[in-house]
């Protein structure tokens, strides 16, 4: 058995500690050690984006990050997107535009869209599509997702579409 390592990190603003196998991924740690099951595993190889989190300000697939790498880092997950019971505008727009069907890819898409709007508050449709190309959705055909993201971006810029 590999030696487990003690990791301290900040997840959604809160300090956390856990013990982890060196081969465990950040996604494993979030889901199994910290009980944050909002990040999903769709592929385990960085090809679907369902496990997207923001690590030290960078959008990453948590299945492609070792849990041990999180030592001293800041992690933001879907569970930290809303402000308490107040939904983030992206979450609200996803609901209003029916931008989800089964909902499995939704947490990863929302985290990725949040990272997009942090980096580029006024994306074109094409920019939004390319930024979100790493988040597979098999239900919606992306149409309503893109509309929701564009609408949320406008609201965050305090414009109306």
């Amino acid at each position: 058995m590999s030696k487990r390592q003690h990791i301290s990190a900040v997840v959604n603003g809160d300090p956390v500690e856990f013990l982890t196998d060196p081969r465990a991924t950040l996604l494993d740690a979030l889901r199994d050690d910290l009980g944050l099951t909002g990040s999903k595993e769709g592929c385990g190889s960085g090809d679907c984006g369902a496990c997207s989190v923001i690590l030290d300000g960078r959008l990453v697939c948590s299945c492609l990050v070792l849990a041990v790498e999180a030592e001293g880092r800041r992690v933001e997950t879907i569970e930290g997107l809303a402000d308490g019971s107040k939904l983030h505008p992206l979450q609200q727009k996803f609901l209003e535009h029916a931008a989800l069907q089964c909902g499995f890819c939704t947490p990863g898409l929302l985290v990725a869209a949040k990272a997009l709007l942090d980096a580029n508050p006024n994306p074109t449709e094409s920019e939004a599509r390319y930024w979100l190309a790493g988040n597979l959705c098999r239900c919606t055909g992306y149409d309503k997702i893109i509309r929701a993201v564009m609408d949320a971006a406008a609201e965050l810029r305090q414009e109306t579409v």
Partner: protein
Amino acid sequence: MSDVLDRPAAAPLDDGHLKVVGTRPIRPDGADKVTGKAAYGADLALPGMLVGRIKRSPHPHARIVSIDTRRARALPGVKAIVTAADFPDLASEEYEAGESAANLRDLSLNVMARHTALYDGHAVAAVAATSSAIADEAIALITVEYEVLPHVVEVEAAMAPDAPVLHAHMFTEGLAARPDKPSNIAKRNAITRGDLAAAFAEADVIVEDRYVTAAVHQGYIEPHACVASYAADGQCQVWSSSQGQFMIRTYCAKVLDLEASDIRVTPAEIGGGFGGKTTVYLEPVALALSRQSGAPVKLVMTRDEVFRASGPTSASVMHVKLGARSDGTIIAADVVLKFQSGAFPGSPVGAASMTALACYDIPNFSIVGYDVVTNTPKVAAYRAPGAPISAFAVESAVDDLARRLGMDPIALREKNAVRDGVKASYGPTFRNIGYVETLEAIREHPHYAAPLGPNQGRGVAVGFWFNVGGESTAAVNLNEDGSAVVISGNPDIGGSRASMAMMAAEVLGLPIEKVRPIVADTASIGFSMLTGGSRTTFATGMAVTQAAQKIVEDLKRRGALLMDVPVDQVDFVNGAVVCLDPAKGKADLTVAELAEKAAQTGGPIGAQVSLNAQGAGPGFGVHVCDVEVDPETGHVTVLRYTAAQDVGKAIHPSYVEGQIQGGVAQGVGWALNEEYIFDRGGRMENAGFLDYRVPVASDLPMIDTVMVEVANPRHPFGAKGVGEVPIVPPLAAVANAVRGAIGKRMTSLPLSPPKIRAAIDAG
């Protein structure tokens, strides 16, 4: 209560006054799904839970000589190991529980190989251990001795007389005489009408081609996952992401020889299914591991396992020959469909045959289908099973016919369109269909007249799906504050909680926020067939509506009691019981007021309806697609896409649009890039999302939808199933657009860049 089996067609509830149905409220389960709280199959953790893993065959065809589990059993932390020896050896028996009748022996052998591994990825053993690392280690320590057998993957190769035979006991069904030797052709099926030879002799124009499609996967983002717990008293619990908790219960009972009454299945949220989660792979194995270990066991597939060991849909080889008069009247059609079913019989070639010509009124035709086993994963349902495949061939041929005739492709289809009263190619007579209206919707759409640039092409294709009804149960309970709960037995895969709540709210005259829907476990609601076949909004919606209507009748009775008037002097209007005689001066009684006084008028207010819904209206879709082809690289860009569909009545238009857009996206992926690729050793080479290329956001344009509403008189609000139809036309719509762009007919899917470049270079 049971529905009357042949209920006469009722007029849909008056469309003009609908307050909730047809609006776009926020889905009731939405907040959980945008905050990460919704619990899917892999999200559940139970105290003492073990982690399961499955050992799979690396060979596409091999006799299992022996399985040695001793070293794995000796590993500390390993709590259970099962092989086929731990499952009953079932007799061959057809059983109706999932998507269509399944052979229980085949089902069981697909869950765990007994003597022979029939495809790369076939389960041969499973372990449960205290950690995933130990489970992985244990899997590696299980030694399986194989005798590798010759294998066959391609459908026509499997049909050849000298092909390696998968099942020595299988003789082709449907031949005039019983064959004298076993074959991989499980079944031959034919549908015929008229005099084909004479009709072709009369035809002015004949088009003919051979078409090939690759096996493709539903590609749901959530891998199969479940947790199972077998208690010391034999009571079993299963939590599972599937399209039907009752289907899981039945199949677990059959595969493990348990009583259905001893199994309680709770549906977890489901992360996409598209037909692929209409059978069992993991649940019986998890239960067997739990029975042996005494602890709950979680089994979750990796993406690699999903591709290799769950059910894709068939690869196919097809021939289509069409004959028409010079005025465009199609008088003859000859269709041959050869479908790969995977390791066990049961491809969707039957439905493909029945849908192949369903949009056309053709007097003479022959449709022959072959169901062929191969050393590949057993196929599962995929959205309108079979129909997109045969539509690809037929709609390509019709497009060629339009070009040969110099006719507009919509006009050609209108000329030959089925209408009310026409006898469908698959037998029955059409009623209340909206096909011609849907063709007109595309013909009149600005997209259809928009100019095209160089290297661009436009393709049209149509599609059909039967839609089904079937058994459903729903309960509606009024709370003491006048709000309501709707309980159904159908997993919500794409927003059905919203439509159930909306239909109940409409009937009860309540705002949608006052109606909460839940999806119940198998012990908490009566039987329902699974969520699939585009049946939930239709059939379960009918049960919900009828349960709400029973409550309305009850409320009228109670209101009349409280008003002290005869029940025939009250009515239910806008969520209140009103006295029809204003002279009596009775104040209206709202649902809330009646609920508050329920104790005085007979106790709690609730109703449950179980029915077997008939009369699901068939659906038609007409799609138009513009592409641009890079002539030097063969790369195809989808520029614009518009899909029109007869939906009967859109209960929640946003989710109807979503179904259409999602079906289109899957169809575009099928047309352009998705395929199972096998190496010469019969192993899948692209079992991951990197090389199994489903469309990403930047691959697609916005997908415009047109909802045509030709009401289905058999549904209280006029609804027809909508989920299947939209995947039927896109394969051919894209291929026909590519034909327009490059001037060459591409007959083999996917239309990948190397194939297109080669076709262009062939000159």
